[in-house]
């Protein structure tokens, strides 16, 4: 369970997040919604340790936890970026196994075996030796999901998972996210698409733009 207590974030004295309090329960899907510019991405980046918050606390299962500093500990947060950010110089398999090998010190065989299992689940079998430029948008996203899962995160975060895809792929993203929930994964999904959020969410958190 991840809890945010009075989290605030300023950029150059501009307050973007104002005393955010929220809880993500284990095995649930939390959707963070709000209009463009409200600060959804900023909130997700703060949770995933890419932005240092200005004030407030994070608690993981009741223990204080600083995502920004906590780089050495167990994998807590996995991230699927809006534009996926696959590594163009690495094949699909290498994209997925790079961090497990270098960071978790898994052997090649172990890492590849696990990657194959997860790839099969997300319908990526046979794509192992392709490079990212050879994949469709939906395939890139699924590789990004497998790559994040390969680090065994406690929570998986997505920023606007439907925005870079054709509208008819929304259904597919929904079923992936719901499928992962059934396997017990805790997920945070940022979206500005209310229908999508209502379809998948256990809980919805609204971020409102601050008018100064």
């Amino acid at each position: 369970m991840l809890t945010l207590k009075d989290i605030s974030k300023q950029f150059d004295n501009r307050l973007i997040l104002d005393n955010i309090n929220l809880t993500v329960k284990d095995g649930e899907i939390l959707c963070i919604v709000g209009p463009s510019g409200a600060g959804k991405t900023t909130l997700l980046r703060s949770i995933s340790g890419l932005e240092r918050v200005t004030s407030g606390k994070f608690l993981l299962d009741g223990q204080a936890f600083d995502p920004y500093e906590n780089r050495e500990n167990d994998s807590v947060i996995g991230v699927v970026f809006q534009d996926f950010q696959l590594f163009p110089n690495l094949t699909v398999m290498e994209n997925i196994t790079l961090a497990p090998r270098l960071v978790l010190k898994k052997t090649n065989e172990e890492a590849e075996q696990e990657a194959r299992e997860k790839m099969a689940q997300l319908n990526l079998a046979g794509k192992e030796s392709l490079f990212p430029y050879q994949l469709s948008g939906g395939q890139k996203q699924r590789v990004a999901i497998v790559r994040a899962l390969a680090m065994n995160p406690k929570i998986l975060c997505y920023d606007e998972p439907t925005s870079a895809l054709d509208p008819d792929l929304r259904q597919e993203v929904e079923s992936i996210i719901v499928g992962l929930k059934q396997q017990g994964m805790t997920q945070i999904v940022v979206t500005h698409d209310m229908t999508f959020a209502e379809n998948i969410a256990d809980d919805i958190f609204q971020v409102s733009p601050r008018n100064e």
Partner: protein
Amino acid sequence: MLNYIMEILPSLLSGAGMTLQIFFWTIILSIPLGVILGLGLTSKFKPLTALIKFYVWLMRGTPLLLQLIFVFYGLPVIGIVFDRYDAALFAFVLNYTAYFAEIFRGGLQSILKGQYESAKVLRLTYWQTLRKIVIPQVFKIVIPSVGNEVINLIKDSSLVYVIGIGDLLRAGNVATARDVTLIPLVLVGVIYLLLTAVVTYILGKVEARYSTWR
């Protein structure tokens, strides 16, 4: 004429050997140094970037010929003495490192922030990120510009002539002056063309290897 060519060829080839030696060592030393200084140029520590910028400005803003003469004939005046070969190598490495640093800086700056962030959330260290993700992408971007510099270096290496090193050009010039014929200089030209052709071919291979991904 064939006899004459066979007669002078050994001295030309030994000159070419010297040219290749300088070429080779300059590449081996100045490309890694260029990567390191290129990283320095993109660092957030301002005094460091300022220092490297000054160095690059100095090296690119003055002739390599002057730098060579400065190292070999100038520095002994203040008690720093290099032998000919070391002086040549020192000047070439200093000069080419500056060009490579600039090229790698450009390459490094074209890698988007998202790649670093994506590596960071996968908990790769900075060095792992550089080695596995950033540098391969930078290499692909800079291959054409590095290739140009490498070709230039083959030709620039003839500048060691002025500090009395027995390179290819000197070998040709000596034979021409002695035998009063153009043949040695023409041969020198042919050998340079062969060298640049080989390097161009190798660069093409490297480029092809990096073209499996985009």
